[in-house]
C-alpha cells in the first residue's frame, strides 16, 4: 500500500515549476498584444519628428546645433519611454481581466509569477525595440549632421581667413565631442533602465489597484517624486532639521520611491561629458536591484489576489 491510489494522486497536484519557455511565450504574446495598439505609426512619427528637429534648429554655431538636437531628441525619447511604460502596463491587467484572457491563462498550469514576469518582459521588450530603432535613426542623423556642420564651419572659417590648423583642429574636436559617440548609446541605455524601473512600479501598482486611472496617476506621481528623491533623501539624512512628522513622511517617500535621478545622464551626454564604465555598472546594478525587489513585491501581492 505504499503507492498512492489514482484518486489521491489526482487530489495532490504537483507544484508547477518556473519555466523560462513559458515566460517567453507570455512575453511574446504581450508584445504582440501591445503592437496591435498601433505603436508602430507612433514610432514612425517620432522618427520623422527627430529627423525634422535635426535640421530645423537655428544655427549660431555647430556645437549649439548638435547639442540642441541631442537634448531635444533624448528628452522626447525619455518622455516616450516612460509614458509608454506606465500606460501600457496599467492597461495590461485590466484588459486581460476584461477579455477574460487572464482566466484562460491562469486556469492552465501557469504560475502567477510566470504570468507577471511575462507581462513585464513583454512591455520591456517593446520599449527596448523602440529605443533601439530610434537610437539607430538618431545616430544616423547625428552622423550626417556632424559631417555637414563640420564642412560648413571649415568653409566659413576659410571665408573669414581664420582657418589656421589650430582653429580647424579645435572645431573638429568640438564637433566630434558633440557628435556621434558611444556616450549617446549609454544615454539611451540609461533611458531604458529608468523606463524599466518605472514600468515595474506601474506593474506593482496595477496588481494592488483595481482602476487603470489610479495606477497611471500614482505611477506618474512616484515618477516625479523619484526625480526629486535625492533632495528628499538628503533631507531625511540631515540630523538637525525640521519636525518629526515631516521627517516621517519624507522617510516613507524616500523608502517607497526609487531614485530615478540616478539615470539622468542624458543632460551630461548632451553636454559632451564622457560616461565611464563605472557609471554604467552602477546604473545597471541599481536598476536590477529595483526590478528584482519590486517584482518580488508584485509577486507577493499578486499570488493570492482574488481575480
Amino acid at each position, binding site marked *: 500500500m505504499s503507492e498512492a491510489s489514482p484518486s489521491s494522486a489526482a487530489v495532490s497536484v504537483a507544484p508547477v515549476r518556473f519555466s523560462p519557455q513559458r515566460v517567453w511565450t507570455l512575453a511574446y504574446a504581450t508584445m504582440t498584444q501591445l503592437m496591435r495598439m498601433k505603436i508602430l505609426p507612433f514610432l514612425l512619427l517620432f522618427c520623422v519628428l527627430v529627423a525634422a528637429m535635426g535640421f530645423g534648429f537655428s544655427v549660431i554655431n555647430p556645437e549649439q546645433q548638435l547639442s540642441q538636437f541631442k537634448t531635444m531628441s533624448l528628452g522626447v525619447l525619455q518622455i516616450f519611454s516612460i509614458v509608454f511604460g506606465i500606460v501600457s502596463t496599467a492597461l495590461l491587467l485590466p484588459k486581460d481581466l476584461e477579455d477574460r484572457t487572464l482566466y484562460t491563462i491562469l486556469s492552465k498550469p501557469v504560475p502567477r509569477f510566470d504570468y507577471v514576469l511575462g507581462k513585464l518582459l513583454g512591455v520591456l521588450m517593446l520599449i527596448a525595440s523602440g529605443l533601439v530603432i530610434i537610437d539607430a535613426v538618431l545616430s544616423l542623423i547625428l552622423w550626417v549632421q556632424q559631417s555637414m556642420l563640420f564642412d560648413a564651419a571649415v568653409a566659413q572659417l576659410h571665408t573669414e581667413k581664420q582657418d589656421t590648423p589650430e582653429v580647424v583642429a579645435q572645431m573638429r574636436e568640438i564637433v566630434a565631442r558633440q557628435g556621434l559617440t558611444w556616450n549617446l548609446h549609454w544615454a539611451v541605455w540609461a533611458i531604458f533602465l529608468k523606463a524599466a524601473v518605472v514600468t515595474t512600479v506601474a506593474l506593482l501598482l496595477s496588481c494592488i489597484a483595481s482602476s487603470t486611472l489610479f495606477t497611471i496617476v500614482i505611477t506618474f506621481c512616484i515618477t516625479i517624486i523619484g526625480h526629486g528623491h535625492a533632495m528628499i533623501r538628503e533631507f531625511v539624512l540631515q540630523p538637525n532639521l525640521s519636525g518629526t512628522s515631516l521627517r516621517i513622511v519624507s522617510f516613507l517617500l524616500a523608502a517607497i520611491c526609487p531614485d530615478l*535621478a540616478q539615470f539622468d545622464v542624458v543632460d551630461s551626454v548632451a553636454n559632451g561629458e564622457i560616461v565611464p564604465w563605472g557609471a554604467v555598472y552602477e546604473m545597471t546594478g541599481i536598476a536590477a536591484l529595483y526590478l528584482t525587489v519590486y517584482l518580488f513585491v508584485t509577486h507577493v501581492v499578486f499570488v493570492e489576489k482574488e481575480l
Partner: protein
Amino acid sequence: MKRKLQAAAVLLVFGVLKLPLEQRVTHDLRTMRLVDEPLHLGVKGNMGQIGLAAAFGGLRGLIATIFQLRAHVEFTRVNWAQVDKYYGFVTQLQPRNARYWEEASWHMAYNAASYYLYNQELKPGLRGQLFHDYVKRGSDILNEGLQLLPDNPRLWQKLGDLHWNRSKDFKAAGDAYWNSFQHGGLNFTERFAAYAYAQSNDPASWTKGYAILKKLYNEKKATPGLIEFLKMLEQNLHIPADQRISDAAPVRKTPDPQAGPQR
C-alpha cells in the same frame, strides 16, 4: 490583507536598506559629473510650474533647450531683458554646461552692448552707460560660470576676449588668457596673455608678458605679432641693449592691425 502587509513590510525594509546605497551611487555619479546637484529653490520659484517639472522631472536639459530657443526668439526681437532672463534660467538649469554661460555672456556683452552703443535714439551719455552696463553684465555671467567651472579653459578664454575687445581691461584679459592656458587652453592663449599684459598700464604685468614672450621666442615660436610686442616691452621695461632680440620690428601691412581675438 496578510499578503499586502507582507508586501508593505518588504518595501519598507528594502527602502531602509537602499537609502545608503542610493546615496553612494548618487555621490559617485556626481563625482563623475554625470548627475546634477539639486536646483536652488529660488530658481524653481521664479520659473513656476514648468520649472518645477524640470527640477523634478529629470528633463532639465530639455527645458533648458526650450528656454534657450525662447531666448533666441527674444534676441531676434532685440528684447535684451528677456534674453537675459531666459539665459538666467538656462544657466541655472544647466550650470555645468560652459556653452550656455558663454552664449549668455556673448548676448549681453556683445549683442546688447553694441545695440545700445549704436542706438541713435538715445543720448550719447546714456548709450555709453548702457554699453558699459551690458559689458559688465556679460563679464559677471562669465565670472559666475567660472565659479562653478573654474577649470574650464574655454570660459577663461572668452573672459579674456571680453576684457580685450569690450572693456579694454588688458590686465584682466591677460590674467584670463593665462588662466585659460594653465587649464589646458589652446596654445594661442599663452601668446594672447602676453599681448594683453603688454598693452596694460601695469609694469608688473609687462614683466609677466615679457617673460612669456621671451620664452616663446627662445623656443623658436616667434610670430610677427610676438616680435612686435616683445620689442615694445623691451623698450618699456628698459631691457639692456645686449639682452634685446636682434630681429627687426615687423612692417605692418595695414594701418591698424588688431592683434588678438576677433569676434
